[in-house]
């Protein structure tokens, strides 16, 4: 059931999802973190970031994580290996999140098939236009059973909101921020997620970008089906200074970070 997010619709409280960058802080530690997330009761699903040299929708934390991962030689094959490892541990959905260029570079069909074999559930490609999705992705996604999530943001037009719910096969990713992942811009989240409600149709709604505390999550209760915590999770892992990197310590920190989320999410 790893590629079907309808379970989100049926739960009465928002579920928690965690984003982490493949290969960060290094390949081994990332594997351990995935193991933790696979078994952690508070975590309903996971986004695995595919590092890219020019991540223009990401804030400083995820940018930096991509840079570290790439500097350690992380490749798409590494991403897929990590996905496989995760899949071997659990049935939770796993989204691959990244940018178009590396996907097109591998070839969309190859990429999707490889992703599917590795056990991924779906894709989030923030810079993928709808036309390109229809032309290049739709049929191969269909035939492999991989799903796709599109974004809506506070600046989205009504049309764009309708389209996102119409087209997304995983969930709609609601950008809970004016800005980038991890940005601490103030905005009236409630107002935005209220504005989305009329367009909700079929696809579940998940909020991400700038969600970092249990109280952020509580504030969205009733408005969304799930939340994604990314930058805050990566920041909680602490310094990535290689010489000081202690995998056990990193995993402990992740565990600590997740603890307060237990009560607020299903």
């Amino acid at each position, binding site marked *: 059931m790893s590629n079907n997010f309808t379970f989100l619709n049926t739960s009465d409280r928002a579920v928690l999802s965690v984003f982490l960058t493949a290969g960060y802080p290094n390949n081994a530690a990332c594997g351990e973190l995935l193991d933790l997330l696979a078994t952690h009761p508070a975590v309903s699903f996971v986004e695995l970031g595919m590092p*890219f*040299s*020019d*991540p*223009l*929708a*990401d*804030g*400083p934390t995820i*940018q*930096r994580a991509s*840079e570290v991962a*790439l500097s350690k030689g992380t*490749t*798409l094959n590494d991403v897929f290996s990590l996905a496989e490892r995760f899949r071997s541990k659990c049935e939770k959905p796993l989204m691959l999140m990244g*940018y*178009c*260029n*590396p*996907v*097109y*570079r*591998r070839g969309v069909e190859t990429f999707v098939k490889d992703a599917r074999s590795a056990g991924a559930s779906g894709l989030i490609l*923030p*810079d*993928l*236009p709808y*036309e*390109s999705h229809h032309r290049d992705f739709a049929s191969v996604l269909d035939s492999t059973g991989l799903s796709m999530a*599109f*974004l*809506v*943001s*506070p*600046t*989205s*037009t009504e049309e*764009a909101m309708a389209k*996102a719910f119409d087209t997304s096969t995983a969930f709609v990713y609601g*950008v809970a921020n*004016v*800005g*980038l992942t991890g*940005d601490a*811009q103030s905005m009236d989240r409630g107002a935005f997620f209220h504005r989305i409600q009329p367009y909700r149709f079929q696809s579940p709604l998940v909020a991400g970008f700038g969600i970092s505390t249990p109280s952020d999550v509580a504030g969205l209760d009733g408005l969304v089906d799930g939340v994604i915590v990314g930058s805050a999770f990566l920041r909680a892992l602490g310094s990535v200074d290689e010489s000081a990197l202690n995998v056990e310590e990193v995993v402990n920190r992740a565990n600590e970070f997740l603890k307060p989320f237990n009560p607020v999410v299903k």
Partner: protein
Amino acid sequence: MHHPIIKHGYYGEFGGQFIPEMLRKNFIDLEAAFNEAWGDSKFQRAYSNLLRDFVGRPTPLQKAERWSERCGVEVWFKREDLAHTGAHKINNAMGQVLLALRMGKRRIIAETGAGQHGVATATACAWAGLPCTVFMGAEDMERQKPNVERMRLLGAEVRSAQTGSKTLKDATNEAMRYWIAHPEDTHYIIGSAVGPHPYPMMVADFHRVIGEETKATLEGLGLQPTHLVACLGGGSNALGLFLPYLDDETELVGVEAGGEGLDSGRTAATIERGSPGILHGAKTMILQDSEGQIEEAHSISAGLDYPGIGPLHSHLAATGRLQTAAISDGEALEAGLLCTRLEGILPALETAHALAWTLKADWSGHEMVVLNLSGRGDKDLQMYTSRRGHNE
């Protein structure tokens, strides 16, 4: 859309809008505003008056006697080096600032590599009284201190991009990110004919005056060029010259920065050595590795040191309408020095690439070449000086 060459934001297979949803509305608004303004004779008048009174247009079209003699072919220079701030870049900056004022925007952002576009934008903003933030790679800020100072004197804030290679590509990412975080009040002035639709065509349109003046002057003289030559960074000076000639027989030549050599791994020759990919919101030719990671470009000329190129250029090259060539760092330096001594014009190192090509090309002698002398080389004095020292 008033450009038949574009279909839904694409030039053939290139172009598009590979942007996150958070920017979609900005692009919808921008495209509508630009199309409306461009079709409005009042906007057109304000823009041309500004080009005349502030920028110093028309720029001369000069027959370069001693250069022609050296090349064995008639070469004319389109003197964009005489435009205010010393390069063609100001045409676009003024156009977009006018557009931003019309859209009611209250802040301007821009990215810059060598600082030429940053200076042009800061200049346009000073003129308009708009606050301006320029993103610049930390590395580039270090290498191009005088331009950083110029921007600051013009009242602009210069923000250093600390990510990635800390150069132009990263400054562009930062500018996009800032725009994502401030979509309402801010307009982003991209510095070349690159980026998501409608930027490539809009920027080119704000530069087409280069080609229009050229065509008007030459037609007045009863002349028709056989070749148009320009250097290719992002491609704005080239398109500015080429646009009015797209449907003519005239050959179009884009000269890329070969850097230390096409096979050295240290090059910026995007069309010659790159492959199709997606960068900064558009599908175009880019320098990338087998994983689809963007590679650092390398050129002695900071204004050509970019791993992408405008999507229209990719299309024109793919369809054979645009001929490309690469010139190495050393060839460009020598050509720049030669032009200085023969013509009394110290050209920008960017321009020197186009100049070098005219020296090397195989001429019958009956051709007539117009070369876009895209900028002056005061900013490159240091580089020329050490080469001269080295030659002696």
